[in-house]
């Protein structure tokens, strides 16, 4: 029973860290965007205030069971990803599920949430939600291809599908972003779509779709979605650090590395207008796909 207790403790601590970091990053991104646009902007802890406000709302409406359970599906995906992805190097963190799932499993569990969420959004009957979902899924087909190419290149080059092994490899070879540069490029370009900042924010385009899939949600539902989003953001950033930047030995190092990675989609988004869905898909099937091919060739030759 002790191991089960330890496991649950690990899960809870990991979730809390992921939640805090994700929320702070999102707040920081709002602040930085505002400064770039020469506004004052909200304080960096604004997202915590928003989340607290949503959580303390008493009334809520729903359109049926799937809508009611949609945020729970979303949470499953976020928390499972954060449990599969090792937070620190060499088992300096709780092992969670690091050894029970591999990269392919991770790829699939990561889409579990969006699909569950899409079902919830579908039941609301709001046309904007469904339109947003179709755009989101189409865009996902777009960025998933270069992303998978990058991962396949890494996995085949180092003959392992385990994240822990890939992190161990980097202890000897150095960061994979230098030894497999093309895979890194493809993965980073795919990341732009994964984070859904501009120019790939057509899914929830605020002025056009009234936030898309999120519309019709409020109070506790929106709170759960928001928390899930920040946990998921942390999971994705940690994944990039683990895969390409040699992981991290302590939390401070992790924070520095993840924030550096986080700046890429954020800063790219600030100077970009919004793409239509087919433009977004074609974007991912252009240069990112080319770098993906180079990565595969690189993996084949070396």
């Amino acid at each position, binding site marked *: 029973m002790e191991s089960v207790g330890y496991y649950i403790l690990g899960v809870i601590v990991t979730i809390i860290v992921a939640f805090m970091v994700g929320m702070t990053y999102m707040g920081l991104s709002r602040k930085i965007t505002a400064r770039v646009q020469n506004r004052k902007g909200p304080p960096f802890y604004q997202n915590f205030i928003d989340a607290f406000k949503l959580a303390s709302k008493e009334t809520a409406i729903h359109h049926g069971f799937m809508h009611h359970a949609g945020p729970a599906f979303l949470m*499953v995906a976020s928390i499972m990803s954060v449990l599969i992805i090792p937070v620190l190097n060499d088992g300096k963190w709780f092992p969670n599920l690091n050894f029970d799932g591999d990269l*392919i499993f991770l790829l699939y569990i990561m889409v579990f949430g969006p699909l569950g969420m899409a079902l919830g959004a579908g039941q609301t009957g709001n046309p904007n939600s469904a339109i947003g979902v179709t755009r989101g899924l189409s865009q996902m087909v777009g960025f998933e291809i270069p992303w998978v190419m990058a991962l396949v290149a890494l996995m085949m080059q180092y003959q392992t599908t385990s994240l822990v092994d890939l992190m161990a490899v980097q202890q000897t070879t150095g960061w994979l972003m230098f030894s497999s540069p093309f895979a890194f490029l493809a993965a980073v370009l795919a990341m732009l779509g994964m984070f859904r900042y501009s120019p790939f924010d057509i899914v929830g385009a605020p002025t056009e779709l009234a936030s898309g899939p999120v519309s019709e949600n409020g109070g506790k539902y929106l709170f759960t979605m928001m928390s899930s989003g920040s946990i998921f953001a942390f999971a994705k950033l940690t994944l990039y650090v683990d895969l390409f930047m040699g992981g991290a030995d302590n939390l401070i190092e992790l924070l520095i590395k993840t924030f550096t990675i986080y700046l890429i989609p954020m800063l790219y988004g600030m100077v970009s207008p919004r793409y239509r869905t087919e433009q977004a898909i074609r974007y991912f099937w252009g240069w990112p796909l080319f770098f993906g091919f180079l990565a595969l060739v690189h993996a084949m030759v070396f």
Partner: protein
Amino acid sequence: METILTIFIIFIAGATGTYFLGKLSGILRSVIFITTLLVTSWLFFTAVSPDVIIEFEIMGILMSWGLTPLAYVFAIIVFGLAIIIGIYAIKAMEGQRSLNFFFANFLLSVMAMFGILISNDLISFFIFWEIMSWSSYFMVVLNHKDVQRSGITYIIFCVIGAYAMMMAIMIIYSYSGSVMIGDFISNFHAFSLGMKWLLPILLLIGFASKAALMPLHVWAPGAYSNSPMSYTALFSGALSKMGVYGMVIVMIMIVQQIPDGYWIKEVIAWLGGITSAIGTLWAIKQDDAKRMLAYSSVAQLGYIIVGVAIGTPLAMMSGLFLAVMHGIFKSTLFMVVGAIERQTGTSNFTEVTGLIRKMPWTFLAALMSIIALAGIPPLGGFIGKWMLYESLMGSNHYLLIIVIFFSSTAAFLYCYKFLFGFFLGQEEKEWSHVKEAPAMMVVPMIIMAILTFVLGVFPGLILKPINDGMQFLGYVSTDNRFWEMSTIFNDWGNQVVMEPIVYTIFAIFLFFLIFLTLKGYKNTRYVTTKDISSSGEIPREDENLTFITGFMQPFFRAVAPVMKRQIDKYYTSFGKGLEALFDFTRRIYTGNGQTYALYFVIFVILLLMFRDSLF
């Protein structure tokens, strides 16, 4: 008497009884039908063991029947599906016409599939193959709709496959003098090099036409969508697997023996990959659920064929596992469509919406099967997909894996379209009278949905017979090397442990579900789907804002270049060319005696002119 023979006699008696006694009363027909299926399945699961072989002679040809361990895996699919779909069919087919014929034919199909699996000689294999083709053809044209297009297309591809297979059988017999499959495999090295290439290709054409491998897949959408859904569940779930069964034997036992046979494997694997990609794209485009699922079947069989063709232990395991899983979730989906069609009268996404609150159990079955189809953990489809990817990586198929990834990611689009189109969206008054399907239809669907889950958590349950079958094919046992009851490993020793993962998923889901439900329980209320905030406007009662027409339009704008080419067009122009040729022949055979006399005169003159050089 041998159990196998008993099963056959029961099937034939059952089919005859269903047909003739069914004319007396409908209840009698159902009773005979379901008893036949129950007794045969019970006999199969309890009394048939894989090592009994019976031999007898008919008209001087030695026939040999017995169940190999490989066939046992497929027989599990056939009998498991037949009994569940059979129960479903009784209620689902209520009120349709030609019921006696339908149920007798259903039994004949199951019997033919069992016959294929137990045949150890090519003659009985071919006979059962033909019975299967014909019984399924009659089902395709059962409702007298679209006979010209779907029916004829289907039977043409059946015949192409059958001719190819028959040619191969004749060659084998004339060269080696034996029609035993075992003799053929052990004597294969003695054939000439040309025959070594020709025979597997002919056999593969025969099997691939049933498994709907590109470019022989043209019949599938029409045939699957045109038969009654109660049969399509069996058609796509079990019948198409007979093609896979044949391909497994050819790929492993025969192609292995060809020098440079490696290339056949690569070509078939790539065809499988392209089939899955093209099938998926076309599935997304369909507005009719039957056609969508038909294209999806084509795509899913593509994955299975990739696994079978690659042929490493992990790949073969994934192919066979996916075959079982596809049988389960695709037949459930076809049953769901059948239930919806029965309750609403249509299977078109653009017509019917918002059924989730009216048919909740059907929705649950559909949801589970769709999750399994999409390959999302923790349901069974994931295990198969995972093994397929790992095997592709372990065997250095760098590009094929990307194709497979593309098609399985794109599959999310039609998965969502299926669920959204039928169950979600705005509820309409037009469908407010719809009730849940009868229990006899819902229970089989739910059982299948639970099966997808059980096999997802404990894949070892079905990997055990698969392992036995693979050992029969000559593989080393994969037990504890690639799988345990709840764990799967890849070529490099990395693992996915399902049990803790599943428990964690459930814990998280339940925790947040309880949180969402209990928090502010009294102040949470349900509102209808008309009560929405759509740009500040509230739709009126008669307005329907569901977005379903042109559902994935932006995606198709992106992939438009791929969709332009269609294999059907090439077949049509080939057919037109043939027609022109026959027209020309028709001008020679005018039917006029005088013309024939003229031909004769010309022939004699020619003979006289060339007599020196000819004789």
